[in-house]
Structure formats: C-alpha cells, structure tokens
C-alpha cells in the first residue's frame, strides 16, 4: 500500500519545493477569487454540540409536560409547516434562514439498536452519531467505522488537493467519548488551543508568497519525515495481525504530514488571520475557533472543518447562572430536564432551567452563525455566490433529550446547499404520525442518520446508496431534500 511512496518519494518532492511552480486553481482560491472553471469546489463542515438540546422527545411519544419531564422542544422550528420559522435555539441563525434546512424525526438507529436500553446511552450515542457504525461494546464503546467527515475528507482531497484533509477544533470540557473516527477503532479528538491550531494550520501562509527561510526549514522537515516514513515502512514489514493496522495508521498520518508540507508551495499566498490568543477559556476559544475555520476554508487549506463543543456550562451568558450551583458539568444540567416537569422534584425551576439551557445552546449556535457569516461574506465570492453556497454544514448533537439519553429525533440542522444540491430555507419533519396532525405527540419514523449521511454523500458528489451499518429501517437517501 505504501510501496508507491518509494518512487514518488522526497527527491522529486524536494526539487518541487525549490521551484516555485504554483498550482493555478489553488492560487485563485487563495485569493478568494471566483473559481475559474470546471466542477465547483465543495466543502463540508460539522458543528458538534455535546449533550443534546431542549427536547421533549420520548421513545415513541413526546412528553407533554405533565410528568417529571418538561414538554418543551426548543430545537424544533416555531412553525410546523415547510416554510422555516426558526425556533428559540436557532435564533442566532436568523440572518441565514434562507440557507438552512432543519430536519426533524431522524433517529440515530445505530445508537438506538446497539444500546441495551434502546435509547443510545452516552458512549454508544456518541460513537454512532457521526459514524452510523457497528459498535464494539464496553465501558467505552468504540465505533467500527469512520465518521462522515472523514469519508468526505478523503474523497474531496482526491479531487481538491489541500494541505489538510480535515481540521478539527474543539471547545474543551466534559463529554463522553468522541463522535469522530478515522476508521474502525480509531477515535479522533480535536485541537483545543486556538493558538496551537493557528500555528499548525497557517504555518508559512503569507499574503506575499513563500518566505525562503521557511521553505528551507520545510526542506529540512521533509528530510526528517522521509527518514521517519522509511523507518515505519520497515516496522510495518515486521508486524502482523492487528498491529499492522496500528502501524498503517501511523504511516497514513505521516503521509498526511508530508502532504501538508508539499502543499506549502501551493497555498501560501493568502492573508492569514491574526494570531489568536493562547487561551483555554471557552467563551474566547469558541469564537476564535470559528474564525480559524473560516480563514482556513478561505485560504483553501482544507475542504472539511469540524468544530466540536464539549458539554460545557456557559456562565458568561445572561441566564448562565440561573440554576443551582451544584452543577459543574453540562451533563448534570441536561439531566435536570427530568426534574422540571409538572410533577418533577424541582418543578418550580422550570423557567430558570429553560432560560439557562436556552442561553447555553444559543451560545453554541452563535458559533455556527459566526462560521456562516464568514463563509457568506460577499468580499470572498466564489462562482455566482459565496463559499457558503458551495459548502454544507451539519449542526448536530448525540441526543435530543439529554435526560433520557435519547438518540431518537437527533437534532439536525443543515446550512448551505453544497452547490445548490439541497433546497434550503425549509423545515422537514419525517414523523409519519405528524402527517395528519403536525403538532401530535405521537412519534414514529423510518428515517435514520444512515439516510441523512447517504443524502450528504450524494450532495458532495458521491453516488452512494448507503452509509454505515445495517441498523436503519431502509437504505438510500432521505426524501424531499433536493
């Protein structure tokens, strides 16, 4: 698998670094200019918010607020019709309403069907929500397949060469496992510090072209990487069985580093963003990460960007401290949902709870808004539109109702149309019981994330008929999106 490297090795590469041949399409991209000709570029983004939303989702019926649990769904659009009227959690996205699709009643069936209680649980829900994969059960379940972002990243990189197949930034905090995986048994975490993310992503990127000292440094790094790669190829010949997978992954990542080095000459002519603060404070990190993602996409440094938000508390928001100070992790705040219904142990705190959670989730949504604003900036046109038009962003979470660990009716919001593929500005509900009465509390659906990701793969240019495991009710894309 790696033998071809011997021939396409670093000798040719080093010569390439010396000569300043610059790939034209990428150069144009880095200027933020219109894409010249051919197939328009596509990009894929995820914003993953750990810990669910404000939801009244039950297994087969939604809560009406007359039990322990509240009856509110603040992720749901405010109007049941197809014309999208954003609900409370989505308010920061109002300027982009025409570019959005809110999809309801899509279950994470890989999570539901592989969990002992049929809801998803923390571990199983997390490792299936972006992978739809079979799971190796245990205290810390492991996904036996890649997450959707990795699949798309590999494919896009084949036709849209970039320095990084994907980037993955994270707002640090408490959460259960990572939803992202490169392959079976290979969970992937994100960079938490915006300064370090900046240093990696924008190394050598300038508005005036390559700095000779930087190029020489890269040449030295190329030598090192080449030597390291050779060492791992030798090692690979020594190991067998499952160990081979471990070494293959190491080799694959070394190749990714090599690719990033090689592309230094391709995409340096782009004004990098200002160096961000070296901070771990979530209220600063979130917006900085959003800005880095926008800048990386504008500079053509990646096709796929992920922003992962741990289940953090947000004491800096207006209602951020309404609830009891017993909470030190967002998980506890989420569980409180089952206490604030009419007969709940803390029914009197319903308004405070709603206010604090809504502010928390709106802050997370504001990061989505920040990314969308950057991508929709008319100063960086692309084709007849903006970067946003050629992108597709998925904003989701592992749960609807966090208190019930509910992987049914997973929160799904899409932004951008992947180059006009999806019809946006709409709200679609796949609840078959809602056909007769859009406001019914009865719940039944055949739609699974498997189907959503099949649709997304098609939107990104694939001819896939299925994604993930065999746990969905049916194979194929979701209806009504295009």
């Amino acid at each position: 698998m790696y033998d071809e490297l011997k021939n396409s090795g670093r000798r040719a590469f080093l010569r390439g670094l010396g000569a300043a041949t610059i790939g034209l399409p990428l150069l144009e991209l880095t200027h933020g200019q219109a894409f010249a000709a051919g197939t328009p570029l596509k990009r894929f983004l995820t914003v993953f918010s750990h810990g669910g939303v404000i939801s009244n989702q039950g297994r087969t019926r939604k809560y009406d607020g007359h039990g322990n649990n509240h009856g509110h769904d603040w992720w749901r659009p405010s109007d049941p019709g197809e014309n999208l009227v954003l609900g409370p959690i989505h308010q920061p996205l109002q300027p982009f309403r025409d570019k959005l699709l809110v999809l309801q009643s899509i279950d994470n069936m890989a999570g539901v069907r592989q969990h002992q209680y049929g809801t998803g649980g923390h571990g199983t829900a997390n490792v299936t929500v972006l992978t739809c994969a079979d799971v190796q059960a245990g205290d810390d379940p492991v996904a036996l397949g890649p997450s959707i972002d990795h699949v798309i990243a590999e494919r896009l990189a084949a036709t849209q060469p970039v320095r990084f197949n994907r980037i993955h930034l994270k707002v640090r905090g408490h959460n259960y496992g990572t939803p992202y995986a490169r392959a079976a048994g290979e969970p992937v975490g994100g960079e938490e510090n915006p300064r370090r993310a900046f240093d990696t992503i924008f190394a050598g990127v300038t508005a005036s072209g390559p700095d000779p000292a930087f190029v020489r440094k890269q040449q030295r790094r190329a030598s090192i990487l080449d030597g390291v790669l050779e060492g791992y190829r030798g090692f690979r010949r020594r190991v067998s069985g499952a160990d081979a997978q471990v070494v293959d992954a190491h080799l694959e990542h070394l190749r990714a580093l090599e690719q990033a080095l090689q592309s230094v000459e391709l995409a340096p002519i782009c004004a990098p963003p200002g160096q961000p603060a070296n901070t771990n404070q979530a209220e600063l990190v979130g917006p900085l990460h959003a800005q880095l993602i926008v800048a990386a996409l504008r500079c053509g440094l990646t096709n796929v960007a992920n922003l992962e938000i741990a289940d953090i508390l947000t004491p800096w928001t207006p209602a951020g401290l309404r609830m009891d100070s017993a909470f030190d992790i967002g998980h506890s705040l989420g569980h409180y949902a089952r206490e604030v219904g009419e007969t709940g142990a803390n029914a009197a705190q319903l308004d405070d709870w709603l206010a604090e959670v809504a502010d928390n989730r709106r802050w997370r949504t504001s990061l989505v808004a920040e990314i969308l604003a950057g991508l929709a900036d008319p100063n960086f046109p692309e084709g007849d539109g903006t970067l946003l038009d050629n992108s597709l962003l998925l904003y989701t979470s592992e749960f609807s109702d966090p208190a019930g660990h509910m992987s049914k009716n997973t929160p799904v919001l899409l932004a951008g149309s992947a180059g006009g593929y999806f019809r946006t500005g709409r709200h679609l509900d796949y609840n078959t019981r809602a056909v007769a009465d859009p406001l019914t509390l009865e719940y039944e659906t055949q739609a699974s994330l498997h189907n959503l990701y099949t649709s997304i793969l098609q939107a990104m240019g694939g001819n896939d008929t299925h994604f993930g495991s065999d746990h969905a009710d049916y194979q194929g894309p979701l209806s009504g999106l295009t």
Partner: protein
Amino acid sequence: MELGPLARHAGLLLLLSACQGRVGDPPLPAWETLTRPGDPQIQEPPPPFDPCAHAPPPALIDPPLRRLTPAQYRATVRDLLGDPGFDPLLDDEALVITERGVRQLDEAAALAIERRDQWTINPYPCDPSGPVDDTCAQDLIHNFGARAFRRPLTAEEFAALAVVYQTAVTELGFEDAMSILVEVILQSPATVYVDEGDPSRPAGIHALDDWALASRLSYFLWDTMPDAALFEAAATGQLSDPDGLRAEAQRMLDDPRAQATIQSFVWHWLQLDGGRLHHALEDVQKDPERFPEVDPALLTAMGTELSAFVARTILEDDGNFDALFNSRSAYVNAPLARLYGVEDGPTGDDWAWVELNAAERGGLLTRAAFLTVFAAANVQSPIRRGVFVLEEVLCNELGDPPPNANDVPVVGGTVTGASGTKVLSVRQDVEARTQGNDCAGCHTVINPVGFTFEHYDAIGRYRSQELGTNLPLDSQGALRGTDVDGPLTDALQLSKSLGQSKKARACFARRFAGHALGQPESTIDRCAAQALSPTFTEGGSVRDLILDLIASEAFTSAVIGGE
C-alpha cells in the same frame, strides 16, 4: 468487516472473566443451586466455596501494539538528552495514534533539537559544526540509536538511518544531517512503540529477551527508559535469570524514580484525571460562596499531598496496603493544614509531614483530593463515593444504571413535595430518591457505603453539621457483598475494613496488574489477580505485589511471532 485491535481479543476476554463477582449475584456453590432450604437429604454443607481456589495467574494475551504514553515519551527524551526542561505538547493517548499525535511527535522532536543548549548529554560523537565525518555519523546511529531504541539496532534499521544521513548530508550539509538523524531517531517506531516481538519466531508464548525486559521494568517502575545500570544488566544477560531480575527490580524500587509509576497508578485509580461524572482535579469547580478558599493552588496542593502520601506509604514505610487506607501521615502546606484542621502546621510556603486527627482522618479515602473530586460543586456526593468504593476498591461491578436513572447531583435542602415544604439533608434526599424498585437493588448496597463519608463536605473538610442545611450529619453505614461485611459508624471504620479485606487487596492487585502489564483491567480477572501474589493478598505488602508481578510469566513473557 475488518475488526480493530480491541475486537481481536474479545474471545479471549470472555474466557478470562469466568469468576467475576457481581453485587447481588455472588458465585453460588453447586449444592445450593440444586437443593432447597430444609431439604432433608443435605446433612451438612461442604466447606466454604472459594471460587478462586484453583485459578491460574493472569493468562498471557497478545495485547495490541503499545506506544509510550505522553508522559513516558517526554521522560524518555529528557533522559536521552539530559534535558529535564523538555516539555512538548503531547496528549494523544488513543490506542491507535491519530494524525494529531503524529504531528505532536514531529513537533516534539523538533523542539528537542531547538533546545540543544539545554542538553546535558551530548549525543554527537564529534562536533557537528565541523567537517563532514561519516564515521561520526555511524557512531551516532549506533550509540544514540541503541539508547533510544533500548536495544541494539538491526542491520536493516542501521542501513535505513545511514540512507537518511547520506541524503541529508548531500543536500543540506553535515550539521543538518546530524541533527536530522537525532530527530528521525526520536520519532522512530522502536523509540515510540513498545516493540517486543520478533516475527521470525514461531507463534506462541516466548520469554522476552533481556532488552525487552529492561524496557518493561523501566517503564513499569520508573515511567521512563532504562538507566545505564539497567542497560548493563540487560547486556550481560542478568535479567533472564529470575534472581537477577529480582535484584534489579529491588534496586529500581529503592530509586526515587519508582515513585512515578505508583503515583500515576493511584492518580488514575482514584480518577483524579477525570471520570464519567467529574472533571480532573485540576479543573474542579466549586461553589465560590461556600468554598471561597478553592483556587488552583489549593487543588494542586491536594494532588501534591496525595502523591507524597502514596509514595511514602508504599515505598518508604512498610509499604502495606492497610496503611494506604489508614495511615494518618499527611504532607501539607498552610492552606491544606487549615482544611484538615491541623493547628501547628506549616506556615508561609512551607510543606511538612503532620499527623492528622485520629477521630477524623485515615488514609486515601479521607483525603481532600479524593473527597473533592467525588462531590458535587456544593455538597458531598454519597452515591458517587459509594460507587467508587464498591467498583474500584472492591471490584464489585455494579453495571449500568437503568435508563431512567438520574445523574443530577443530589443536593438536599428545601424540597417541595405533595406534603408541603421540608428541609432534607443530602442523606435524606438520597434515601428518598433511591427507594424506588428500579433503584433500590443497587442503592441498598451503594448508599450505606457512601453515607459513611457524610462528615466530609465537597472539598473534604470535616463537619459535624451539614453545610447549607445545618442538619446533623449521620455517617452510619454498612458493607455488603464483601469479605468484611458489617455495620459501619463512619469512613474511618470503612477504611479499617478495606485495609483488612482480601477482596480489596485482590481488586488492588487486579487494577495494578492491568496498569503494569498495559492490559485492559478486564483481561485480568479477580482470581488471576489473587493468584498473582498470594503473599500480597495475605500480608498486604505492596512491594511484594510489585515483585511478584515482575516475576510472573505475564510480565516476563509475551505472545510473539507467527509471521
């Protein structure tokens, strides 16, 4: 489908977990399952059933290829170059390395070179800024390479590094070529991974060679690479001899570096690096109104105290398991002395060993670090403390809570119910919330253990009245499903029972062996852990446990080969 390295061992794991105990589901002797009470045919019961009576020690598994932990890699590079200030960002602990992890190794190697001025061990046999010297480069590969790889290089490895040098010296010059060699070696598989296999041998269980044993010893006991004496012992074949191995292990245990592993084990065991329901100790957030004294310095001090306590109890004093749970010596600074109510403790920035109040404190479980992490932001958490003791100290697997379980911290205080408003203590609130049928099965076992800690608030201060409600505190409890069952007056009595419990010792051995062998704990069952060190199970000497573990086949051999 291609299965990951974890899945590969699933079949083996099943075989090894045959005698695992469960709360409410103790292993029954066969006669009990076949007869009813009062059955006239039974004259007298057979002797007490010991499910572990004939259990073998931990079986060998073929674990997935391991690489050094971030801490081990950092310590290794520090030792290789004599640069104790080397502190790169390394945080990838995933079983299969991620792209980020590979990038971090690349950046760490570059950082090591940048810090050349700080090195106190010079890897270069000649002056790299001098003229081209191919022999010098070969010596660098041989000598520095062997230290980094922790064994002599194979011919293939030498040849590959020679090519790296040749290419670099031609294109970039001698000085760059020499530093490039160091950087390549620092990222090489033999440096980064724990490579014990020789695929040319037939598949099966093989004794590790001396070099691999030296690495196992040093990473187990010191969390870093072998020192010169250990390399020497390996080179002269001493480690293949059980007496030689034991002598070397004794020497290493007497070295202060041995603190590292036992401390990191206990840190992880007590979940001070974070758990399912709590932050790492350093990230703990407490209610600032109730606990204005909590700041990063106090949290750090709690950790310092705990690590010092563990090192002293296990390595300096008699190293007895019982002391871990019952010793009252504590290493404190002024803020900690205040927290513990020590009156003539250190002042200013000083630290000192003191004896804590015998009526209030015992070992690990009554110290601030544990009690702070296992607590809500404003009150104590009897449920989480109880679950920890049962699952981690006694290895009583409780299983997952039912789907309608509620993880919200139980905080007591004013509760409004159908019968009006009343003020409940945390204990009363816990009792009220866990009495339902779904909960009681486990909570009748969990709560009486957790309640013994009632006197310790959310940062481990000892109180006679509950903070917030001002209600009296009730620490009466009980242990059930163990070899030391019985009523308990408080956490001190709980600690005394645990210190004497063979079940707790077997559990400790199990957790510790998993840590030492780099195996998931679930692959070492209770019986195997007990068989590993009968001396430890009987007498409680942690030193015995460590030495027995090192002498065991699970430590000295590996599943190798079959290419």
